[in-house]
């Protein structure tokens, strides 16, 4: 049902490769983003290189504006520069505007009907190139090339992994009355475009979890009666139950290398955490305490798993080794802690905290149990998952109208921002860096 990502061919740009990333800055650094340019003879019409160049520049600025580390200036029509100036910018002009970084680039139409998109990132003060990237794309794929340009600038400025803007978000799209919802698994590009459905709404579905490169998706389905985890392969559009069992399986999550899935299985009144190969095999039981152990999430190195357990009488966060040994509690702040998700950089664990009389809020805590911070103000926030940058969290927020929507918030603070989806949205899941 879902077409895999369209082809995006890297092309080599004539100068030498990038220099190492600049040192990390605490405050947002200004990056000038003047409009990408075109060769002089370019088609100025709609769908031509000039139109794509303008749209691509707006998308790059929008990507960078969504980060805590970069503050884009532009694009402004008056800041046009010539094609040769792409690789020889007038640095003094940007220095005077207070820009620390500069992104230039071009869109050129090729004889085969495709476009070449090239981007360059400079450190303005030293007049030094920090990196470059180029792609030959079909007309429909310029957005992906633009996201790669954003990633280049973000990497040059912060040292964070490239590719974080060209990622995907899975969620549950909800329609219908609040007591009789129709739920469908949806996947969209992380810029909100290219939304498509994975399930058709004939069965209740929950908690989609993309594999790190978004080639597979695990989710919970009520098809056939008992809730159970199903896995979709987007290459073949085939799907299958994760494990053959008549019992309830739920709460799937991939390891960061995509080879394993941690999940929960109910037996009688008891629920425990298990792990199984992403391609199948015999599940291994990791917890054995009476009560509910669920919501497992791997550390990025795959050696540990954070999960929630009510073995102490209320839901709390625990960490164990990936073989189930060394289980120990890390949350002690009062109230209930649930839905843990380990950040891609390993530094933080996001969670939902239920505080009696207050509601639910999302927060972060370090794996050693220190540094706890509540990020969202509630009163009905839950299901956090990490942006691939490890600097933002996407979560579900239920409004006063009782309708769920997706929101994102920076871990450095500030207001949550709504993530626009065509229908109501719940259970968000953000992929890793795809390529």
């Amino acid at each position, binding site marked *: 049902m879902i077409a895999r990502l369209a082809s995006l061919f890297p092309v080599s740009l004539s100068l030498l490769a990038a220099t190492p990333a600049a040192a990390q800055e605490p405050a947002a650094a200004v990056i000038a983003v003047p409009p990408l340019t075109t060769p002089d003879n370019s088609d100025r019409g709609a769908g031509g290189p000039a139109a794509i160049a303008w749209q691509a520049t707006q998308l790059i600025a929008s990507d960078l504006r969504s980060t805590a580390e970069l503050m884009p200036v532009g694009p402004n029509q008056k800041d046009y520069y010539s094609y040769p100036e792409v690789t020889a910018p007038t640095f003094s002009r940007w220095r005077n505007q207070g820009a620390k970084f500069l992104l230039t680039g071009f869109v050129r139409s090729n004889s085969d009907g495709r476009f070449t998109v090239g981007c360059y990132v400079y450190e303005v003060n030293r007049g030094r190139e920090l990196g470059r990237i180029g792609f030959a794309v079909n007309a429909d794929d310029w957005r992906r090339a633009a996201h790669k340009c954003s990633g280049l600038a973000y990497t040059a400025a912060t040292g964070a992994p490239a590719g974080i803007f060209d990622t995907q978000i899975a969620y549950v799209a909800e329609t219908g009355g*609040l*007591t*009789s*919802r129709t739920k469908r698994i949806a996947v969209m590009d992380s810029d909100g475009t290219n939304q498509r459905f994975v399930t058709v709404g004939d069965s*209740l579905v*929950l*908690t989609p979890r993309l594999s790190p490169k978004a080639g597979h998706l695990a989710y*919970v389905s009520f098809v056939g*009666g*008992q*809730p159970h985890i199903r896995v979709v392969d987007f290459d073949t559009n085939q799907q299958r139950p994760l494990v053959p069992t008549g019992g*309830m399986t*739920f*709460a799937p999550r991939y390891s960061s290398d995509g080879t394993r899935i941690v999940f*929960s299985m*109910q037996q*009688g*009144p008891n*629920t425990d955490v298990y792990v199984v190969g992403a391609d199948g095999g015999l599940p291994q039981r990791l917890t054995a305490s009476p009560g*509910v152990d*669920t*919501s497992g999430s791997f550390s990025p190195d795959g050696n540990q798993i954070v999960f*929630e357990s*009510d073995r102490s009488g*209320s*839901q709390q966060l625990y960490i164990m080794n990936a073989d189930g040994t060394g289980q120990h509690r890390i949350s002690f702040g009062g109230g*209930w802690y*649930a*839905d843990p998700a380990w950040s891609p950089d390993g530094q933080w664990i996001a969670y*939902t905290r*239920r505080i009696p009389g207050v*509601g*639910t809020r999302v927060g972060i805590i370090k794996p050693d149990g220190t540094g706890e911070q509540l990020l969202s103000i509630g*009163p*009905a926030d*839950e*299901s956090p998952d990490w942006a691939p940058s490890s600097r933002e969290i996407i979560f579900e927020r*239920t409004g006063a109208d*009782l309708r769920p929507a997706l929101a994102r918030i920076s871990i450095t603070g500030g207001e949550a921002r709504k993530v626009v989806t065509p229908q109501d949205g719940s*259970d968000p899941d953000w992929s890793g860096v795809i390529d």
Partner: protein
Amino acid sequence: MRRAMFFAVLLLVAEAASAQLPGLRRRDPLPPGAQPAPLLIGIDALRADFLARAGADKVYFGGDSSVLTPPAQATLQAQAAWLRQHPEVVVRIEGYADSSDTRDHALAVGARRAEEVRSYLVLLGVPAAQLTTLSWGKEKIAVLGSAPAALALNRRAVTVLVR
């Protein structure tokens, strides 16, 4: 006339279902002699009879709890009495959590509540083979809102006659 009698059945059903709701006052019972003959057939007739005789198809739980309260036990004793007389009826016990719970935990809690009811019915002599369980987690909310009374009405296990 048929229409009037049908409404009477519905009233009786609504009355029975609300009997155990926390915070709601019981309405006055129907006048003596008003009990209509059942017009329903098959599983619908069985369901109506079950509701009328067991008093309620639902039991309710405390926050984060799957412990059966004395009123819940009384309801299940009445359900068990009916189920023992109808061993041919297949029953699914559906457990629910309230919307203040988190998604994954709610599934586990719904299962635990359904399992608690199943175990109690088996203890009371209902054949285990007659009973299956299912958790809806925090899906299919019965009463909207985050007020404590609304949440309490969603923390439930429903005994559903399947066939």
